């Protein structure tokens, strides 16, 4: 049960919501559409579902072109961002709705409907609430009812729009794991939309990163985090410190302040070529003293975060446009303890891993 999207374009008046987007999702995958609000991820999901229609391009489900087909004929289950439960119906009737509106010759008997609904409510662990109304449920419970309702019609594809967007942090974490387990059990090809990179990393087997109506990168959570294809992906997934500068010998010169790193395989690139170095907070090492020629910084702020320590360090003897005002550094607890740093101390900064981008274009990623 694969999903394939070919060269979809969609505009709302002057605003181009999707710009020539193509995507493949294999049978049984759980894929996240990740991006900031307004990037087109929900629009893409609605096109796949058949809730909106494409201007150009095609949607193929399970090898069949369904571009012009009604949502009823696509075999998709859709879970809405705000659940869209029917407020005037009990939980039981909400879940039964999809079965009750079937044509008479396809509709199961009342007994079968009852059995099926209770099975589904058991699956989402809510059978004890079947007589309640949606308004009497918590957010997390509503979400699970919405999921049970979507599953009642035995969809071949499950599409979820910001499934955890409106929930408390704790409930959200619990539901993420639960969705993951449920997917392992049911094996329905699923796509969910989220703006939360942590959520995408934790739940999805593959992540589709989107920005401004285009797909920036498709890959496993590891791939998009470790090998971002563009500056946008690098800064959207996880925190990052950005250094703009020009190559100068063995260093990146940000204007009077050198970081002694160079893109791998850039030996034949001439001096003065502009580059941007994207370095994650945990890809720094701090040293109290060194023989090497490393840039000097001063510790401005220390925040213990449990397993890691978050530090803000300020580059010394430097004020240039290419530098971040403060550099975020994250040290494992053990390393921080060993260094025994305090605010105001002088440290030397070493980058252990850098994502390089040349004039906005992806170059090479690697150590140093």
């Amino acid at each position, binding site marked *: 049960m694969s999903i394939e999207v070919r060269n979809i374009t969609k505009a709302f008046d002057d605003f181009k919501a999707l710009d020539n987007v193509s995507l493949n999702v294999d049978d049984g995958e759980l894929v996240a559409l990740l991006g900031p609000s307004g990037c087109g991820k929900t629009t893409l999901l609605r096109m796949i*579902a058949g*809730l909106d229609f494409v201007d150009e391009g095609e949607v193929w489900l399970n090898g069949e072109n369904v571009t012009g087909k009604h*949502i*009823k004929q696509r075999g*998709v*289950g*859709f879970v*809405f961002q*705000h659940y*869209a*439960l*029917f*407020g*005037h119906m009990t939980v039981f009737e909400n879940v039964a*709705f*999809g079965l009750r*509106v*079937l044509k008479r010759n396809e509709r199961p008997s009342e007994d079968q409907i009852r059995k099926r609904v209770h099975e589904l409510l058991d699956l989402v662990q809510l059978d004890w609430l079947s007589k309640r*109304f949606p*308004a*009497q449920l918590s957010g997390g419970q509503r979400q699970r009812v919405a999921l049970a*309702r*979507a599953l*009642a*019609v035995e969809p071949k594809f499950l599409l979820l729009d910001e499934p955890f967007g409106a929930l408390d942090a704790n409930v959200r974490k619990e539901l993420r794991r639960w969705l993951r387990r449920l997917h392992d059990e049911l094996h329905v090809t699923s796509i969910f939309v989220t703006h939360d990179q942590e959520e995408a990393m934790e739940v999805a087997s593959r992540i589709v990163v989107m920005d401004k109506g285009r797909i920036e990168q498709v890959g496993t959570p590891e791939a998009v985090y470790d090998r971002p294809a563009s500056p946008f992906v690098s800064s959207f997934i996880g925190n990052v410190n950005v250094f703009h500068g020009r190559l100068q010998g063995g260093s990146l010169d940000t204007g009077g302040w050198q970081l002694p790193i160079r893109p791998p395989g850039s030996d034949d690139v001439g001096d003065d070529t502009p580059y941007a170095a994207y370095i994650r907070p945990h890809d720094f090492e701090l040293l109290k003293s060194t023989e090497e020629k490393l840039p000097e910084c001063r510790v401005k702020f220390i925040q213990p975060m449990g397993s890691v320590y978050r530090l803000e360090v300020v580059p010394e003897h430097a004020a240039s446009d290419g530098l971040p005002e403060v550099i975020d550094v994250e040290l494992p607890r053990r390393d921080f303890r060993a260094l025994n740093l305090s605010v105001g101390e002088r440290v030397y900064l070493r980058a252990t891993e850098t994502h390089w981008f040349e004039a906005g274009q992806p170059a090479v990623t690697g150590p140093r």
Partner: protein
Amino acid sequence: MHTQTLALDRLDQPGARQWPRYVLTGLAIFIIGLFLLLPLAAVLIEAFSEGWDLYVQAINDRYTWEAIKLTLLVAAVVVPLNTVFGIAAAWMIARFQFTGRGALTTLIDLPFSISPVIAGLIFVLVFGAHGWFGSWFAEQGFPIIFAVPGIILATLFVTVPFVARELIPLMQEQGSEEEEAAIALGAGSWTMFRKITLPKIKWGLLYGIILCNARAMGEFGAVSVVSGHIRGQTNTLPLHVEILYNEYNFTAAFAVASLLAGLAILTLVLKSLVEWQQARSLERATQ
């Protein structure tokens, strides 16, 4: 909401000056009494001034019965039509973006901003004997002006906004997610309307229908222009009251008027009931 309660609390505090409270409350009661209760009482007192028998006799008049029947007929035609139109228009405006959407919203309000007399005159101009289409209809043996169709048309025009006005903000606020969910679960458009949309708007709809009905039965201005005041044929209840009054038949006039007053009170009771139900279902939904 909160500031209001606070302000009232302050008036309630011991030591607070009491006179503004009494003056304001007294003024409100005085105005309500003078302009609302007194006329109502006058209608009833006048209607029964010559005793119960004459009251019954006044109402049990052939022409009064014809007027009641005509009024009920007009309401029976106008209210369903405007209910359907109101739902359709509210649906269009609340669910779709299209050019002319703002113009349509304004147009629906037009009957509210036009004097009913003008509304009546428009129909005379279009369908009257010297109007654009009037002679053609008359030739077909189906006159519109000074006949029942004209009364229905004029009443339709005047009562267009009630249902639509009630539903548009309600449907806009509710949004379309539940309807989309129903479609996504395989419901057809009609099933979706019957099982999802209608239950969600039912109290607002009922409220609009009640107001529409009250106006349809009570409309005077527009109907007066197109009716021709033919007793037993084109006389509605409000027109009948005027005729009786002009004939110095005060007791009968007030007796018939008391029927309309009764209708008004019944409408208010129904309206409060619906509002109460609406508030209760809203409370349940936000619990």
